[in-house]
């Protein structure tokens, strides 16, 4: 079969394909499913053998995140949070710890909770909280994502918090270049509150008991944070997300096009056949394709 004949067999309803575009036959769709899985496992394998080649480029500025946070608080009539250098340092340590121990969670695999970092830097608090984000494209998107999540919004708009610390750190997480945003909130105990606070960036809170600090790899963590904190994003052009999104849009677009062509030709030729309804498939695949196109990278915790 010539290339042209093969393409016709694949996309044009004809006797050769039982009057149904071959690409829409369940057996071919099943092959596409298998191919997509192979592609994904191949991507995972590539990340394993060539870590840091793929990653996410962002332009998040700590100042703008804090500014946007205070703007959201201002809209609700809440006092702005002031930047606290100790909270900034705790945020840096937390981000460094996440990269050093390769985890995406509030509590590290070793059991260190967020409050351990507050205590490591000597920040004694009445109230404290933490918001995390990764892989967002810009500062505004981070704050909007937190505002869209009830638990993160409660943190961000909590009137008990007085101070903030923030860290935006680039590093490798699960083999992928990642931009982490750690936002810590705190309200110092009265004794601490009397002490003058240097004006440095801060982070965001969550209710937490004054747990005993768990000191461990603090020095290692600090080193990692220092190395990465000030570095601009390495700006890799491709990330696993973008590669997957391109493939998803290509596949769904291909199927959508084949469905449309098949429906049109069958309608014109008035072919009667036994198959699923193209209109239903078009609505379903079209809705999902739109969702995939609108999906942007980024996760919050």
């Amino acid at each position: 079969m010539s290339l042209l004949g093969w393409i016709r067999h694949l996309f044009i309803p004809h006797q050769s394909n039982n009057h149904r575009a071959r690409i829409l036959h369940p057996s071919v769709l099943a092959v596409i499913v298998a191919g997509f899985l192979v592609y994904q496992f191949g991507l995972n394998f590539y990340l394993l053998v060539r870590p840091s080649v793929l990653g996410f480029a962002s332009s998040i500025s700590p100042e703008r995140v804090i500014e946007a946070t205070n703007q959201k608080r201002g809209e609700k009539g809440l006092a702005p949070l002031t930047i606290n250098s100790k909270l900034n340092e705790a945020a840096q340590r937390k981000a460094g710890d996440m990269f050093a121990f390769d985890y995406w969670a509030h509590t590290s695999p070793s059991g260190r909770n967020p409050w351990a970092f507050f205590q490591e830097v000597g920040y004694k608090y009445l109230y404290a909280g933490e918001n995390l984000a990764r892989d967002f494209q810009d500062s505004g998107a981070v704050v909007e994502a937190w505002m869209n999540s009830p638990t993160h919004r409660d943190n961000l708009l909590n009137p008990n918090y007085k101070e903030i610390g923030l860290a935006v750190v680039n590093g490798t997480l699960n083999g992928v270049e990642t931009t982490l945003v750690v936002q810590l909130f705190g309200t110092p105990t009265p004794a601490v509150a009397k002490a003058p606070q240097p004006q440095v960036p801060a982070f965001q809170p969550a209710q937490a008991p004054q747990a005993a600090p768990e000191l461990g790899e603090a020095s290692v963590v600090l080193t990692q944070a220092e190395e990465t904190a000030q570095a601009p994003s390495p700006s890799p052009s491709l990330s696993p997300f973008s590669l997957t999104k391109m493939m998803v849009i290509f596949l769904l677009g291909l199927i959508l096009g084949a469905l449309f062509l098949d429906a049109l030709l069958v309608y014109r030729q008035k072919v009667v056949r036994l198959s699923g309804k193209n209109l239903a498939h078009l609505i379903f695949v079209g809705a999902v394709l739109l969702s995939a196109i609108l999906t942007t990278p980024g996760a919050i915790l």
Partner: protein
Amino acid sequence: MKYLKHYLILAAILSVGFGLFWIFNYNRTAQIWITLILGVIYVIWGVVHHALRHEFHWQIIWEYLVVATLVSLVVTFLLIRA
């Protein structure tokens, strides 16, 4: 169209799903669940639609199953990567 009501119901279900998908933006777990549930609903819609048209054949149901699996799978992987 004789079965217009069926298609309107499908469009309404998918619109609600799309809306929920948007509302739960960045809540990847919720979005994955929404995608998988929509895939299951789509297969059920196909079964009911073809049964009411007296066209129930396993070959057709298999087609709906494969389409729903393909679509749900690719979006789930996309959300995991996001």
